[in-house]
C-alpha cells in the first residue's frame, strides 16, 4: 500500500494543541446561549408553525424574551412556567410566550417545580431524536454497505419537487449520497423558512418539510435500486443548530457542519458561530449524523500549495471541537480538496500526497474529498479531464466520501445530465483503478513523501502559534483561508446572550450526559 511518512509524535502534538485551542473556546461556549440555540430547543420540545407572514413561532417567542432581556435564563424556563400556568402543551406554551402577556419570570413556581414540569417534555424531545435515528439506521442496515469512496452529488434546482426528481435520477446514475444545497442567501437568515419551497436560487431552502420530501424520494430510490441513498444538507449559517435538529428528526444521514466556516465565508460573528456549532453538534452526535467539515474551502481564497497546511491544522481543530460536542471519529468527515492550480508542474503529486496524508492521520474518519472548483473554467471538456485526475486520487488514497466534480462547475449548479456524466466517469475511474493504491509504493524521499512531511511540519507550527494567540487571535490575523474576522464583528452577534447562573436547558444537559463540553473525553485518537 502506498503510504507517506507520518511522524506519530507530531500528530499527537497537533492533537494536544488543538484540544487546548478548543478548550479555551469551550469556556466561552459554556457561559453563553443564543437566539439560534433557544429556537432550536423550543423546536425540539415540539413548537412548530409560522404566522401569516411566515415568521416562525419559535422566532416570535424567542425574540420577544430576548428583546425583554430575559433570554439569559433559557427559553425553557418560561416554557416550564407557562406549562405550570395552564398551557396544555409546549405548542400552547410557545404561543403564550409569543402572543400572551410577557412573563418577567418573577415569583411563581420554584426552579424545581419548573424542572419537574419539563421532565416529560424533555424525555419526549430526546425520544424523538433517538426514534428518528433508529428508524434511519434500521433502514440503512437492510441494504448492503456501498464500497468507498462513496459517491456524493449535489442537487440544487431551487424547487424542491425538481430536487426530488433529480435526487432519484442521481440514485439511478449510481450516487450513494445526495446533497441538497441551501439557497444562496439562507445562511444569513436568522430564521428557518416554513414548508415546501420552490423559489430558491443557487440552491433550495433548507426547511423541515423539504427534508421530508427528499427523504421520501431517496428512500423510494433505495428500494428501487437496492442501495441505500444517504441524504445530506447544510447545518450552517445563523440557523445551524435549528437545521441540525430538523435533520436529526427527519432522518438525514449527513450534514455540512463546520466549527469556523460561517465565520470565514459568511462573516458570521465568531462568538455566535462557536456557541451555535456546539449545540448543533450535540444534536448531531446524538443523532449519529456524519458531519462534513469545510476546510476544502480555504483553498479557494488562499493558495492551495502555500496554505495546504492550514487545511490540516484546521482539521485538528474541527476534530477537537467535535469531540467536545460528543461527535465520534467515525462520524467526522473532515474535508479537503483537489484545488491546486492545474498548470503547476507535478501538482497531481502534491494532491496525491495531501490526500494520502489526511487518510493516514485520520484513519477512522469518513474523510471527504472535494473536487477542483476554483480553476474550473467554461471549458467543460478540459474540466471533465481535470475531474478524472481528481477521481484517480480519490480511489488511490481510499477516501471515504467523494464529492464528485462537475464539468459545468464554472457555469451553473449541476444539471441532470452533468451529474449523470460525472457519475459515469467516476464509476469508470473507481473501477478501473480499484486496487491501484495497494499495488504501488511511493519513493522513500520522493516528491510525494517529502511534501507530506512538509505539510505536517507546517501544520504543527501553525497550531503552536494558534494555541498562543488563541483561536480568536488567529481568526483576526487571517490564519485560515486568508480571511480576517474580529471577535465582536460580523453578523448575528446581537443574538448571543450570557447565561444566567440558573440557565435552564434540560435537553442540552441530557445530551451532554456527564460531560460538559470541554471536559468530554471524546473518542479521539
Amino acid at each position, binding site marked *: 500500500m502506498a503510504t507517506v511518512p507520518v511522524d506519530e509524535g507530531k500528530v499527537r502534538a497537533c492533537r494536544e494543541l488543538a484540544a487546548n485551542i478548543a478548550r479555551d473556546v469551550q469556556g466561552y461556549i459554556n457561559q453563553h446561549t443564543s437566539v439560534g440555540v433557544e429556537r432550536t430547543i423550543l423546536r425540539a420540545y415540539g413548537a412548530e408553525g409560522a404566522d401569516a407572514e411566515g415568521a416562525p413561532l419559535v422566532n416570535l417567542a424567542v425574540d420577544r424574551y430576548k428583546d425583554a432581556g430575559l433570554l439569559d435564563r433559557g427559553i425553557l424556563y418560561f416554557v416550564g412556567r407557562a406549562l405550570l400556568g395552564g398551557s396544555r402543551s409546549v405548542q400552547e406554551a410557545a404561543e403564550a410566550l409569543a402572543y400572551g402577556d410577557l412573563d418577567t419570570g418573577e415569583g411563581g413556581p420554584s426552579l424545581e417545580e419548573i424542572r419537574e414540569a419539563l421532565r416529560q417534555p424533555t424525555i419526549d424531545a430526546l425520544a424523538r431524536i433517538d426514534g428518528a435515528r433508529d428508524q434511519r439506521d434500521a433502514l440503512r442496515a437492510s441494504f448492503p454497505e456501498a464500497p468507498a469512496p462513496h459517491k456524493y452529488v449535489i442537487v440544487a434546482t*431551487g424547487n424542491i419537487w425538481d430536487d426530488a*426528481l*433529480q435526487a*432519484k*435520477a442521481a440514485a*439511478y*446514475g449510481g450516487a450513494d449520497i445526495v446533497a441538497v444545497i441551501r439557497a*444562496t*442567501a439562507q*445562511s*444569513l437568515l436568522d430564521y428557518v423558512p416554513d414548508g415546501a419551497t420552490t423559489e430558491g*436560487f*443557487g440552491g433550495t431552502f433548507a426547511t423541515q418539510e423539504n427534508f421530508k420530501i427528499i427523504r421520501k424520494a431517496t428512500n423510494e430510490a433505495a428500494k428501487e435500486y437496492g442501495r441505500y441513498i444517504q441524504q445530506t444538507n447544510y447545518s450552517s449559517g445563523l440557523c445551524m443548530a435549528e437545521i441540525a435538529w430538523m435533520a436529526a428528526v427527519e432522518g438525514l444521514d449527513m450534514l455540512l457542519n463546520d466549527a469556523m466556516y460561517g465565520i470565514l*465565508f*459568511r*462573516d458570521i460573528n465568531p462568538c455566535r458561530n462557536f456557541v451555535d456549532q456546539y449545540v448543533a453538534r450535540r444534536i448531531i452526535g446524538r443523532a449519529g449524523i456524519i458531519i462534513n467539515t469545510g476546510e476544502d474551502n480555504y483553498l*479557494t*481564497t488562499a493558495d492551495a500549495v502555500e496554505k495546504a497546511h492550514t487545511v490540516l491544522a484546521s482539521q485538528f481543530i474541527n476534530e477537537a471541537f467535535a469531540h467536545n460536542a460528543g461527535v465520534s471519529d467515525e462520524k467526522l468527515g473532515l474535508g479537503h480538496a483537489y484545488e491546486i492550480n492545474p498548470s503547476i508542474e507535478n501538482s497531481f503529486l502534491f494532491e496525491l500526497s495531501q490526500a494520502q496524508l489526511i487518510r493516514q492521520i485520520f484513519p477512522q474518519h469518513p474523510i471527504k474529498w472535494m473536487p477542483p472548483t*476554483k480553476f474550473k*473554467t*467554461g471549458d467543460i471538456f478540459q474540466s471533465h479531464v481535470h475531474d478524472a485526475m481528481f477521481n484517480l486520487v480519490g480511489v488511490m488514497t481510499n477516501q471515504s466520501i467523494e464529492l464528485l466534480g462537475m464539468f459545468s462547475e*464554472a457555469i*451553473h*449548479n449541476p*444539471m*441532470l*445530465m452533468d451529474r*449523470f*456524466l460525472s457519475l459515469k466517469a467516476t464509476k469508470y475511474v473507481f473501477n478501473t483503478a480499484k486496487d491501484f493504491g495497494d499495488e504501488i509504493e511511493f519513493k522513500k524521499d520522493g516528491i510525494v513523501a517529502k511534501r507530506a512531511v512538509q505539510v505536517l511540519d507546517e501544520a504543527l507550527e501553525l497550531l503552536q502559534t494558534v494555541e498562543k494567540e488563541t483561536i480568536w487571535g488567529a481568526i483576526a490575523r487571517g490564519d485560515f483561508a486568508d*480571511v480576517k474576522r474580529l471577535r465582536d464583528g460580523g453578523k448575528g452577534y446581537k443574538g448571543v446572550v450570557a447565561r444566567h447562573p440558573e440557565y435552564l436547558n434540560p435537553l442540552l444537559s441530557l445530551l451532554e450526559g456527564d460531560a460538559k463540553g470541554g471536559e468530554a473525553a471524546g473518542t479521539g485518537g
Partner: protein
Amino acid sequence: MQKAAKLPERGVEMSDEKQLLRAYGDRRGDGMIQLSFTLEVAPGARAREAAKRFAELHGIHEPLVASMEEVAPGFSLFVVYGHSQHAVDLATIEVPELRTEALSREVVYARIQEKLGRKLVVVGACTGFDAHTVGIDAILNYKGFSGDKGLESYKCFEAYNLGAQVENEQLLARALAVNADAILISQIITQRNSHKENAAAFIELLNQQGLRDRFVCLLGGPRIDHKLALELGFDAGFGTGTKPGDVASYLVERLA
C-alpha cells in the same frame, strides 16, 4: 450539404456589406457542430427520431445522433453532430469594446501624479447576498491575480476593499466617506439574473441621490462584459481573466 457547397473557399462570404460566418468542423464551410441535450423520453427508435427532428428544428442539416443514453428513468441524453445551416453576418455586429492600452506601472503613476497630484481613491465590494470575494480581491488586494499585483500595491492608488455581502447603501456611504473617485462592484452569482438586478439597483440608488456623475462605476464578474455593464448604467465592465493592470489603465485613461 447543398448550401455549404455554394460557399466560397473561406467559408466566410466576403462582400462589401456581408461577412458570413459558418461553423468550421473539418472543412471550410461544412457548418459542422456538436450539441448535447436531454429529452424527457426513454431511449428507443422513436426517441432517436425525436432527437433528430429536434436538431433539425435548430437548423442542423443531416443530424447524426452519435449517442443516446438514459440519464434518469424516462430521460435520454443525446449527443448530436450535424451541419448547421446558419451563418452569422459579422458585418452587422457591433459590440462596445473597452479599448484601453495596457499602461506600465510607471506610466500609471506618472499620469496620476501629474494630472491629479494625489492618490486615486477606489472602493470595491461584492454586493448583495453574494459572498464571493476572490474576484474583487484579485483586483484590489496586494496579492493580485495571475502574477499581476492588485491596486493596493500601486503607490498612486488608495484602495478600500469592503469584501462581500455588502449592501448597496453601505458601499455608497463608504465611497462618500473616503471621497472615492471610482466604485468597483463585483457580481459572481448569476442565477435568476441576480447579478443584473443587484448592479442595476446600485446605479438606481446613485441616480436617486443625484450622485451618478460623482463616481466612475465599474462592474466585474465572470458573466459580465463591457456591453452588459453599459446597459446596466456602469461606465465599464470587466469579465473573466481581468488583471488589476487592466483596471488601473482604464481608470487612468478615464480620470487622469
